[in-house]
């Protein structure tokens, strides 16, 4: 089950500043919805613990994240994979940065792929829930860069 999302916003920060924020796991990871903690393996790999609650499936998931594209200050992309009771989740999230006046236009896009019984048990809930959480992430990002 694939959930696709995307959008754009403008922020009064330079592309370099935005890029620097996005590619710093210590800054970026806490913005993830239901963030509970993280461990960083190296500059591009980190594991985030997030709380999961969909239907009766509740628990914590360890999401292994990797910064797979780093093109300063134009583009950053993360890929992640994690498992929870009832399924696995694979996510891709990319950010394209373009100068816009004295700020930056951030075009973001991504896809979450859900595997396992999670997809069937909570299938109808996942898309709205996913979109809600992505919106939280983007709102958090905008707030942090404001």
């Amino acid at each position, binding site marked *: *089950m*694939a959930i696709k999302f995307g959008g754009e916003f403008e922020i009064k920060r330079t592309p370099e500043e935005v890029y620097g924020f996005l590619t710093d796991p210590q800054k970026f990871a806490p913005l993830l919805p239901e963030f509970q903690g993280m461990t960083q393996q190296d500059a591009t790999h980190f594991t985030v613990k997030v709380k999961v609650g969909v239907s009766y499936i509740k628990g914590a998931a360890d999401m292994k994240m990797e910064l797979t594209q780093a093109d300063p200050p134009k583009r950053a992309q993360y890929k992640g994979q994690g*498992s929870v*009771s*009832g*399924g*696995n989740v*694979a996510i891709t999230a990319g950010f394209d940065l373009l100068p816009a006046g004295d700020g930056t236009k951030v075009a973001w896009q991504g896809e979450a*792929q*859900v*595997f*396992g*019984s*999670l*997809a*069937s*048990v909570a*299938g109808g809930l996942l898309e709205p829930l996913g979109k809600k959480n992505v919106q939280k992430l983007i709102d958090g990002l905008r707030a942090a860069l404001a």
Partner: protein
Amino acid sequence: MSSEADKKNWVGKSFPRKEENRLLRGRGKFADDIKLREMLYLRFVRSPYAHAKIVSVDTSAAEALSGVVCVLTGAEIAQQTQPFIEIGPDPFAKIKDYPLAVSKVRYQGEPVAAVVAESPALADDAAELLQIEYDALDPVVDAEEALEDKSLLHEEAGTNRVWNGVFEYGDVERAFKEAAYVVDIDRLHFHRFSSTPLENNVVIGQWNPKDDRIYYQCNNSFPSFAIQFLAAHLSVHIDRIRVETSDIGGSFGIKITSYPQMAICALASKKAEGRPVKWVETRSEHITSSAHGNERTFRDTRVALDKNGVITAITSRHIDDCGAYPRYEPLGCVIWSQVFPGVYRFKNARIDFTQAVTNKCPVGPNRGYSRMQHLWFLERVIDICAHKLGFAADEMRLRNYILPEEFPYTTPNGCVYDSGNYPKMLQVAKGLIGWDEWKKKQTAARKEGRLIGIGIGTTLDSGTNNFGQSQIVNPYLPYSGNSQGANCKLDIYGEVVVAVGSCPQGQGHETTAAQVVADVLNIHPDLITVRTGFDTERNVHTGFSGTYASQFAVSGLSAVHGAAQKLKAEMKRLAAFTLGTKEDDLEFGTGAQGPEIQAKSTGKSINYWGLANLVNANSAGLTPELYEVTLNCRYVWRAPFKVPDTKRKYGSLTLTYASQLHVAVVEVERDTFIPRILDYVAVDDCGTVINPPIVEGQVYGATAHGIGAALMENCVYDAVGNMLTSTFSDYIPITAMNMPNVKYGHIETPSPHSYSGAKGMGEGGAAPIHTISAALQDALFASDIIIEDSFNNADSLFRALKSKETGTLVRVEKRI
């Protein structure tokens, strides 16, 4: 005493089921009722991915949990066992099928590891502690796409194509050349569904170190097949495996393929030093991972017809989706041909049949296995041609049905239909539903804009397989014919005890076997104890014993009848000696001291206890020629089959052909697109009826199943192989609340191929699928809709009505 002159035939009588008292009072013994000392509980850890490499399996956290006895992984199992036998020929004979995934997973829900613990809850908790890392691969969930071999499921086979064969008979080219009409149908699709037995799979396995034997108590419905797979897989002599079944809460075929779970329970017991291990399947496990019915796509169908709408030839490509592992397949690639022409007379046909693996749950025999897909296809062909050419659906059938006077009827592929009268069934069904009245109501309703359709579905239930047909898919298979064993004895105190090798799941074997023996011995069926349920130790089973494929009424009861006749002959011999008379002077009946045999000339009699005592406890007076009398008679009934011609794919594949004809009136609500059944009739012909209420009950049950399959049950997978219908919220079983008031009728055309005239009384479960498809098409044809799929609900009908794409599926060439 009551004598043979007073004899009433118990066969054919509405005798209450002997099982009912036990089962309805909750006194049945089901596998999950069994609790053994030191029993452990097993939980499978299943793959969330449809297709992925297994990178690592870390069992340490689970093994460290208190109360966890052991954890099994695929890598470990592969070291200890042989891959399961493959039924198909190369290249699929090369694949390695183990009960736990070894290096990759091939469907969502595939078992990857098994956790064994002191309690079910502990096993559940421990299962969540396993850390399994996967590397996702491209899944393939569509059989036609699978045939492109872009993503291989079994690399060792080198292809996803399990089997291909062309079934061609008659002069197809000539028939098309001479046709008045040619109808082309691009695509039809028979959907994937399973069954929802009240009781899921249950296995208790014990590999006892004291005698190095494996003991199973389970609800597998074809144990003699399972033990052949298990013995080879576990490298043990088949005689070292004991399987017992007791009451079974439904199977519908899909419990045939529980042998992988049986293997794991035995291996887990071995690892747990011989403690018994129980596995009870959850409902979601059952829906996602036990077995599904075969999904089939029919491509490029061409139909030749004469000017009267009589079909003269059919060609088509059939693509069958068997899921991730062939298991019982590719038997389905030939089993459909038991009903090659359906109930129709056409002689020329070419069917190119292919089977593919996909990243979905493996299939298993399910509700009219493999034949219902083909019969649905033929009924679709009939209705599409009728609508497109302007023939009435009933008239179209009457012009094409095999006629009563043509029986026994040899089909183009050499099957012999024993008996039947399809026009009469149609007449009975039309009478019961009030055909002419409904036609008038339909005309009036259409003027009001209502979408009402009337559909007919005719189907066959072929029973008692010739296992020689397996050689059509693989000439090296050592199976042919069919047999069933039974034992009938007088116990030491004269009790008549019958043992059969079947595994009844509600079919009333206890009752019908007693009725047969009661007729032979002229006693009341209540005086007969029938031991149903399979037990290898009873020594009554053959290699085909089990309950499947609509055969007990013929094979099982023929074996019971044979054993009872043998017992009767021995009893006569002994009684003649004891009473000092000739055997033809003897009469069987019931006297003051129970069942007895009386000498008509003298009035002297001996009761069953006396007879049994002579053999078992008071034998000193017997003459040596009577020493061979044991009053313990095993009989193996064998079906009179020959091995089919494997090159021509020709021969008698099944012994009896029961038939069902259903008629439904269905309305599609204009606002909601919900299809509602307004009226329903089911007419059945299973030859001589042994017990009318049992047959009627099976017809109602099968009709419910078929209506559920047509309108409610659908195994839906997304593009990456997630099964989206894994609970009863989404995979919706039919209940009494969804059932129309079914009007039941029957006719009897006795089979010349069985001793009693009975035919296999099976599901007939396909008939509602055909019938509802036909009724929906009748309702929507004026809206340019062709019903191309066997599953239709409000959502699919809404989409069909909005897109109207199905109207382009069919083209008609008129040459007159």
